[in-house]
């Protein structure tokens, strides 16, 4: 009777000890750093953090700033288009790839290759390609279409779509590979059954295969969405935020004010707003996904 049950704290002790560094990192670096940043966003910190509280001043200035509004608008356009197009194109490519075609490996490699390049390289390459004097536009003009005009990066109204083209070119390959993995995970019997029932292939995809791929879609969504919120290097390399401020993004605003403008308070306020935006998306999703009764 004396042998009491080992306390739950000591159960699986090795695993718990092994997890300590990660727990500390999560608590101190992520959570602690986040709380610190939010707290200092209410101060008038310049180049170095200083605790002189100014309430919501930084936020008032932030939302009164035209550049921030343009950045938010750009993030919205870029984000929405990126999500829709990369999913649609990625899925279509994956579906085509799944037709037991010849040289699948070759095609897969070619399409995935851009993902091996950094955003900096991608940005530079597309800056050149979209330059009217030496890129696509000049090639087509040299072929005889004299009046052809395509210079998105020099037109403030559509410059953000020039960035989007580069983003899609770089990122779609990864989406395709993820989707392809999802498609390969579908039991072949499902296809056989649908063929026996005489259902057209496109209907099978939309009503049977896609719903079955829900977990893959969610993983992909998280990867793409986090890539969108933090987009920075692509802008810096491709347009530098220009022409004017037409392709500014929130992450660049944060960096420019924290370091270039020597105004940490403003940068912290902007990054707090970015965090808030992420939370607004993540919390409802997490509640749907993990909260309540599991579906299926």
């Amino acid at each position, binding site marked *: 009777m004396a042998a009491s049950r080992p306390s739950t704290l000591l159960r699986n002790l090795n695993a718990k000890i092994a997890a300590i560094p990660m727990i500390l990192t999560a608590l101190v670096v992520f959570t602690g750093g986040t709380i610190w940043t939010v707290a200092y966003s209410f101060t008038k910190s310049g180049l170095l953090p200083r605790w002189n509280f100014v309430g919501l001043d930084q936020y008032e200035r932030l939302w009164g700033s035209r550049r921030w509004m343009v950045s938010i608008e750009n993030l919205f356009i870029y984000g929405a288009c990126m999500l829709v197009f990369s999913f649609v194109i990625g899925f279509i490519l994956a579906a085509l790839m799944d037709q037991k075609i010849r040289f699948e490996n070759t095609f897969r490699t070619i399409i995935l290759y851009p993902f091996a390049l950094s955003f900096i390289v991608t940005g530079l390459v597309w800056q050149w390609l979209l330059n009217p004097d030496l890129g696509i536009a000049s090639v087509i003009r040299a072929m005889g279409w004299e009046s052809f005009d395509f210079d998105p990066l020099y037109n403030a109204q559509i410059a953000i779509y020039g960035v989007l083209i580069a983003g899609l070119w770089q990122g779609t390959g990864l989406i395709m590979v993820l989707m392809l993995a999802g498609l390969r995970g579908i039991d072949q019997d499902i296809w056989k059954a649908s063929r026996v029932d005489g259902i057209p292939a496109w209907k099978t995809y939309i009503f049977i295969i896609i719903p079955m791929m829900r977990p893959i879609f969610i993983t992909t969504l998280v990867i793409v969405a986090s890539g969108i919120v933090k987009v920075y290097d692509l802008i810096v390399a491709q347009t530098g935020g220009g022409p004017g401020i037409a392709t500014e993004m929130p992450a660049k605003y944060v960096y420019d004010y924290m370091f270039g403008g*020597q105004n940490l308070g403003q940068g912290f306020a902007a990054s707090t707003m970015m965090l808030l935006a992420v939370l607004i998306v993540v919390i409802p999703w997490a509640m749907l996904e993990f909260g309540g009764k599991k579906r299926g």
Partner: protein
Amino acid sequence: MKKLTILSATTALTLAGGAYAADLEVTHWWTSGGEAAAVAELAKALNEKTEHNWVDGAIAGSGGTARPIMISRITGGDPMAATQFNHGRQAEELVEAGLMRDLTDIAEANNWREVINPPSLLDACTVDGKVYCAPLNIHSWQWLWLSHKAYEDAGIPVPTNWDEFVAAAPKLEEAGKVPMAMGQQGWQQSGAFNVMIISLLPKEIYLSVYQDKDAEVAAGPEVARIFKAAADARAMSADSNVQDWNQATNMVITGQAGGQIMGDWAQGEFQVAGMTAGEDYTCLPGLGVNQTLQAGGDAFYFPVLSDDEATEAQGELAQLLLTPEVQVAFNLKKGSLPVRGDVDLDAANDCMKKGLEILASGDSLPDVNQLISSDTRTQIEELFVEFFADSSITPEDAQARFADIIGDAD
């Protein structure tokens, strides 16, 4: 036993070599042709005159890119031995936080107070009576560079002031030239605007806007005229699709563009291209209107280091920068003016001599960097980068936003 001999031999050698040779890493953003040639002079002086080594830490992409990197390294505990800043308020908080080395003893030993002219340059290095930086050169922004070739091709005489420059624009366009070259970066565009304020208006206006931060003056009718002039500049530079200032200067050098508003550092580029002032190009201080120059410039700051020997070497570098020989060698290549009033600049060309005369007459104003914080500067740059890229923004709207920024400035 053998090892021990080698060891003691090496020790003896080191001792014989005298003082410790330190590697001094110096960061700066001087990367264009003329600038690189000037930096090479500094490196040569350090390598030859002391036993220390110059480790070049050039950071490409203008001050806006370079400063954050420098500041992160200093605040992050990985300081370089010396770094360039435009003196004034850019390094203000680093000094206040005690991250910069106090150079007062070196300044006193070498009589910086007496030799540096104009004295406002040393004042900009001084915080609470202590000197924290070594001024290196004087740069002024108020120059209009004109290409003789472009005007010859268009068959019109080279303008002698801003109004003629604007009036000549249509003729240049007919001849297929860009009337005005302008790099599409905020610092160049807001810089050109500040040049117009100083050159086209009485200097009291500049001081009440930037020194007293008077929002009413900034919203007033005089400044409105400057915004109109900026809109002219925007129209004239609409076809100049370049980013860096030296690319824009190159358009003037090759005669593709009529002119460019740029500081006297552009001089170095003309020199590298082998051009002669007065024959191949013309420089108009104060846009040919007001003969007033802003005396800003570059200075070297020396972060506090933990290594005593490196600190010693830092001091030697600071001292070296202000010696007459280095001042002359560096500034001739750079196209800037020496900070010492007592050096001989016979080798200087026409443009530099014009600048020296104006400075000697005492007609100089403090640089924008000495008056406004980096935060305000960033906001103004942002306004102009947008203004120059988007012709739908009216001068009135831009002025209203400018006045708001000045009203909020600290």
